[in-house]
């Protein structure tokens, strides 16, 4: 393995440690990551913009700060890149749409500020589904971002570039956002870890909204430990976001003990296993065996109707998206993407009474779900997505209306937990015979991110799926 491959193959926490201890400079890692970003971009289109000059300047500043003995943050000098929806005052943020090609926010997202305060380097803006609005990852505005393991296949979305760039080692970690599965799905389809935190665990101030009631911001990285590091930096109360919880942020990394002996893992007897590709089922079963081998106890549970949760979540999502985009749709006219407009327009026809009905049902549904599942188990183990990544051709049917069943099929295992506001983690669980990643999803009680990460970390200590890399162009 070349030095370049070895250094880019480090996980985020190890990269941070080596920078902190002076074994490698931030500038070196940043140069290598930029080089990798340029090399993979023509193949997978995972960046919307690469900010080379600024990233190198910041890296050199990080190295100088370290040489002065300035206190290093948890991400000091580590090259990251993020979904193009986190505002930094004065810098263009497109939300994956050329309709926002000149959009220069005047505020900085709380999470962006926290990353900067922790010393992270910002390599550039990563690709995403236009306006974070579909789980497939298609984008007519900037062209599709393609799967890291097979560019003929979809990347998943909407945090497409985040998953692909991390998988291809073009950055050590990334922030994504998840409304109905937009962190977990691309993470699963590209073989990395992606965490949708509890609704309220992470501030949304200064991010491009898709919905108010469902959007979350979360980490995407190669390991559970890396996600724990990132979550520890970005989580916590924010005076600028009333929905951000005031609960103290635990030391997530300290919770990664490797010990899950006696952990009760629920496996659902209904819904989630109804439509699984055999390769996905195999990956799920193998992961359960590995977790059981670590001392976890597997218990079967019936779960309260997830289809109902899916329906309510999608209803809330389309209504709020229609409200958020109403002005832009009007201004853009025919330039606004048709599929997107059609989906959102459905939300405009939902009576206010029904929208409020859907919102008001959530608390009781969460109680019902927690009672049914988390009284009997500590975490729930389910698929992230029942199919392997379809080809881009298959995801672009000749008859446009056929895209809607695909959208529903893609998010059927992720959206129910968005409706519930509960944390959910996508974890790599192996590969199909064609070499495509499969994953499992762990879901927990509200604010149990540490437990989910502990289970995933324990699993990653006895498996090596997360250490495998796609074939990467060398130029």
């Amino acid at each position, binding site marked *: 393995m070349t030095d370049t491959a070895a250094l880019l193959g480090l996980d985020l926490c190890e990269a941070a440690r080596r920078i902190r201890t002076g074994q490698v400079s931030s500038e070196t890692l940043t140069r290598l990551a930029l080089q990798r970003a340029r090399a993979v971009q023509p193949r997978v289109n995972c960046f919307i913009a690469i900010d080379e000059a600024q990233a190198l300047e910041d890296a050199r500043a990080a190295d100088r700060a370290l040489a002065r003995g300035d206190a290093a943050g948890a991400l000091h000098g580590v090259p990251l890149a993020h979904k193009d929806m986190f505002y930094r005052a004065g810098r263009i943020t497109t939300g994956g749409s050329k309709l926002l090609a000149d959009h220069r926010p005047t505020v900085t997202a709380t999470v962006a500020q926290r990353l900067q305060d922790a010393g992270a380097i910002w390599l550039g803006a990563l690709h995403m589904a236009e306006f974070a609005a579909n789980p497939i990852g298609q984008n007519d505005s900037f062209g599709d971002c393609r799967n890291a393991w097979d560019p003929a296949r979809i990347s998943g979305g909407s945090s497409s570039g985040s998953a692909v760039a991390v998988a291809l080692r073009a950055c050590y970690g990334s922030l994504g956002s998840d409304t109905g599965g937009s962190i977990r799905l691309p993470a699963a389809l590209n073989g990395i870890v992606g965490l949708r935190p*509890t*609704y*309220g665990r992470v501030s949304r101030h200064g991010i491009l909204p898709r919905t108010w*009631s469902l959007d979350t911001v979360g980490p995407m990285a190669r390991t559970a430990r890396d996600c724990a590091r990132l979550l520890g930096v970005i989580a916590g109360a924010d005076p600028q976001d009333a*929905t951000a*919880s005031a*609960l*103290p*942020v*635990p030391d997530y990394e300290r919770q990664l003990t490797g010990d899950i002996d006696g952990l009760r893992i629920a496996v659902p007897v209904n819904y989630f296993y*109804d*439509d699984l590709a055999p390769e996905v089922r195999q990956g799920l079963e193998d992961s359960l065996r590995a977790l059981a081998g670590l001392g976890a106890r597997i218990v079967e549970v019936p779960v309260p109707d997830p*289809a*109902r949760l*899916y*329906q*309510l979540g*999608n*209803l809330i999502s389309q209504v709020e998206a229609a409200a958020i985009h109403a002005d832009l749709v009007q201004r853009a006219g025919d330039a606004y993407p*048709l599929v997107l407009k*059609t*989906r959102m*327009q*459905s939300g405009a*026809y*939902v*009576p206010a009474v*029904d929208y*409020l*009905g*859907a*919102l*008001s*049902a*959530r*608390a*009781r*549904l*969460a*109680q*019902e779900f*927690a009672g049914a599942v*988390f009284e009997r188990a500590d975490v729930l183990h389910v698929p992230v997505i029942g199919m392997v990544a379809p080809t881009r051709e298959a995801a672009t049917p000749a008859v*446009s*209306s*056929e895209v*809607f*069943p695909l*959208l*529903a*099929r893609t998010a*059927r295992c992720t959206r129910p937990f968005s409706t519930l*506001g*509960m944390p959910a983690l996508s974890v790599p669980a192996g590969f199909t015979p064609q070499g495509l990643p499969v994953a499992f999803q762990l879901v927990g*009680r*509200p*604010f*149990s991110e*540490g*437990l989910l990460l502990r289970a995933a970390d324990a699993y990653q200590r006895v498996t090596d799926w997360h250490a495998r890399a796609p074939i990467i162009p060398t130029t």
Partner: protein
Amino acid sequence: MADTPSDLDALVAALWPQAGGIDPQRMAELVGEVRSIVQAGRDAARGNAFDDEPSRFAATLHRLADPGEAGHD
């Protein structure tokens, strides 16, 4: 496929041939079906109406958290 959720996207798919300009009348009829979805979700919500006020969802999440896992002091 098994019990794929029928929802707004499915309703829109039914209208797609006219998607360049959705017929509001047809859309209104179909969205009527949404009411049954919402009602199903609200069947359990017949108790204290203030507990169902949407902004109290966040309080419910906090109540459902396990103090040992959630970072409580």
